[in-house]
């Protein structure tokens, strides 16, 4: 039978790529904005001026971290909104020049779905294929640029497999193209939501024109994010109204959220190197334990290593012959949270578009689990998971008629 349940069920959260809890220090700086400091930053009296001052400070602080100017920062309602603003903002403003977009097959749906929508508005899209580890080649990006290409959108780090894309190299190729062709196009957008707490966010080094970040993946509050927009890149807003955020995102600013986001980003960037090292060690220990105790597994994405090629907290593993949702439900019974690329948890009944884009067969994608580590995790958590995971996989394999690698179904015929 399945491993016996423990007397005291532990709560082990291994889904930090989905969302994170709010850091206490972030919560603390947010609190006054639900009380005393409630003014509308657009109001002229003192309460408004105080709020406006804080808002300006946030613009300044975030700009400093990503090496931009304060008026390059547009605070939004989250990562998806920022991606939408970048994509619709650029394409609607510059459609007269061209209607070609380049993106990848492994983007988040917040990028893929707006672009798919644009295809219906007669835009033409090139979807770049990653290699088997999820990397997009800068040369390939360059080769796909056409005279009518106006936007290139490539994520900084992938949410499912943790592969870190060579954004700076891609940015350099795009710059070269623009210089050689004496053009301001194409603009370069990157979705950096997964990278916010892990990687360097210097927009000058990355050579990006637009960059998306959000708070809920970096121990900040949900419902707030930002879009960096290089000066000189004109976009149209998604939301019209009072003209807040340089006319690009109307609506009274979510000041508590913005202050929380700013603090979360500061903390994440301050501690990222130490935290990265800790997470790499923990993650590698986890994978080592899995590969020692469970056979027939496959690591999906880039090889483990430092944060330059794979997010330090990401582990995506296929357990052959078993199905991801079943594993997920059993793990849940022991208090362990993770996610899967299996179709059963998606609305479409199709397995993960990222795993299939890597060339993985469907049955591999169906058997994948994604563990993403974070602040709260310790070695004790991993040991707790390893107490139950091998038993669950073993049991499900016993129930499963599938035996990959062995001669197909020979046993029953």
């Amino acid at each position, binding site marked *: 039978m399945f491993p016996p349940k423990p007397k005291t069920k532990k709560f082990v959260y291994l889904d930090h790529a989905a969302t994170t809890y709010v850091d206490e220090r972030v919560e603390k700086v947010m609190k006054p904005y639900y009380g005393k400091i409630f003014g509308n930053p657009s109001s002229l009296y003192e309460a408004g001026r105080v709020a406006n001052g804080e808002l300006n400070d946030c613009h300044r602080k975030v700009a400093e971290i990503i090496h931009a100017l304060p008026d390059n920062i547009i605070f939004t309602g989250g990562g998806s909104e920022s991606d939408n603003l970048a994509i619709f903002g650029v394409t609607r403003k510059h459609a007269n020049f061209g209607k070609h977009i380049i993106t990848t097959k492994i983007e988040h749906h917040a990028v893929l779905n707006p672009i798919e929508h644009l295809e219906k508005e007669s835009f033409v899209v090139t979807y770049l294929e990653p290699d088997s580890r999820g990397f997009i080649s800068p040369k390939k990006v360059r080769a796909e640029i056409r005279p009518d290409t106006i936007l290139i959108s490539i994520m900084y780090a992938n949410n499912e497999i943790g592969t870190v894309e060579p954004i700076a190299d891609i940015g350099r190729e795009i710059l070269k193209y623009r210089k050689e062709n004496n053009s301001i196009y194409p603009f370069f957008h990157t979705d950096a939501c997964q990278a916010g707490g892990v990687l360097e966010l210097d927009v000058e080094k990355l050579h990006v024109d637009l960059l998306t970040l959000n708070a809920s993946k970096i121990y900040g509050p949900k419902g707030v994010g930002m879009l960096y927009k290089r000066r000189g890149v004109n976009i149209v807003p998604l939301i019209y109204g009072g003209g807040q955020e340089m006319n690009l995102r109307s609506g009274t600013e979510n000041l508590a959220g913005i202050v929380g986001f700013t603090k979360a980003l500061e903390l994440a960037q301050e501690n990222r190197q130490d935290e990265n090292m800790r997470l790499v060690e923990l993650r590698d220990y986890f994978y080592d334990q899995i590969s020692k105790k469970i056979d027939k597994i496959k690591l999906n994405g880039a090889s483990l290593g430092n944060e330059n090629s794979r997010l330090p907290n990401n582990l995506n593993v296929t357990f052959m012959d078993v199905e991801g949702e079943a594993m997920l439900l059993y793990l849940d019974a022991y208090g362990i949270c993770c996610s899967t690329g*299996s179709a*059963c948890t998606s609305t479409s009944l199709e397995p993960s578009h990222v795993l299939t884009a890597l060339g993985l067969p469907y049955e591999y994608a169906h058997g994948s689990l994604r563990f993403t580590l974070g602040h709260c995790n310790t070695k004790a958590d991993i040991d707790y998971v390893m107490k139950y995971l091998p038993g669950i996989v073993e049991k499900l394999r*016993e129930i499963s*008629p599938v035996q990959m690698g062995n001669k197909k179904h020979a046993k*029953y015929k």
Partner: protein
Amino acid sequence: MKKIIKKVTKTKNLTKPVDIRSNDGSGWLYSDIVKDHFFNPRNFMKQGEEEKFKYDGMGRVGSPACGDEMVLWILVDEKSEKIKDCRWRTFGCGSAIASTSVLSEMIVEKGGMKLEDALKIKPQDILARLGGLPDRKVHCSVLGDKALQAAVNDYFRKTGQHGRIVTAGSKIIDKVLNITDHDIEEAVLEGAQNLEDVQKKLKVGVGDPEAIPEIEELIRFYMEKYYG
């Protein structure tokens, strides 16, 4: 804060957990029966048991690439034509495992089910016994009755009763691509709700536009059958 939460639960008196994640409002949550079968599966073929277990019919449906695969072995009493015993194995999610387990219970309980009755088992019967499944999980229970049919057919074949083999009456709808009503049924079970969805999966009617009215009628029929 705590006070507020207490008050809300008290006034609303939620007897059933509400799940707002699915678009159709039907929810994802599994019934207690599903959970019971999921955590304590009955009658499955244990490791090493396949050499020992005697059976007269075996049915296999699905494939791991589709996300679900089931194998069902049945032992039939020749005289009474009742299913004396069965074993199964399933690759799939929680509901797939639970629905095979519950099906195995249905066919062997009370001295075993007669073959003719076993062939009449519909996905709805499995669903009812499970206390329902979330909408998009309905297809898991469909595999169960198909595996049973395949196993019974296998029994008929092995015992030389070829005339009794039941073939699902499928009719070619799209003559260009040879797509049958059965394929459309599958597409609907996989979540397609209209012609556009079905075409995404099957390209049906693209090369044979004359078939489109019939296709649309079939989609309505199967929507009604499984979700109506």
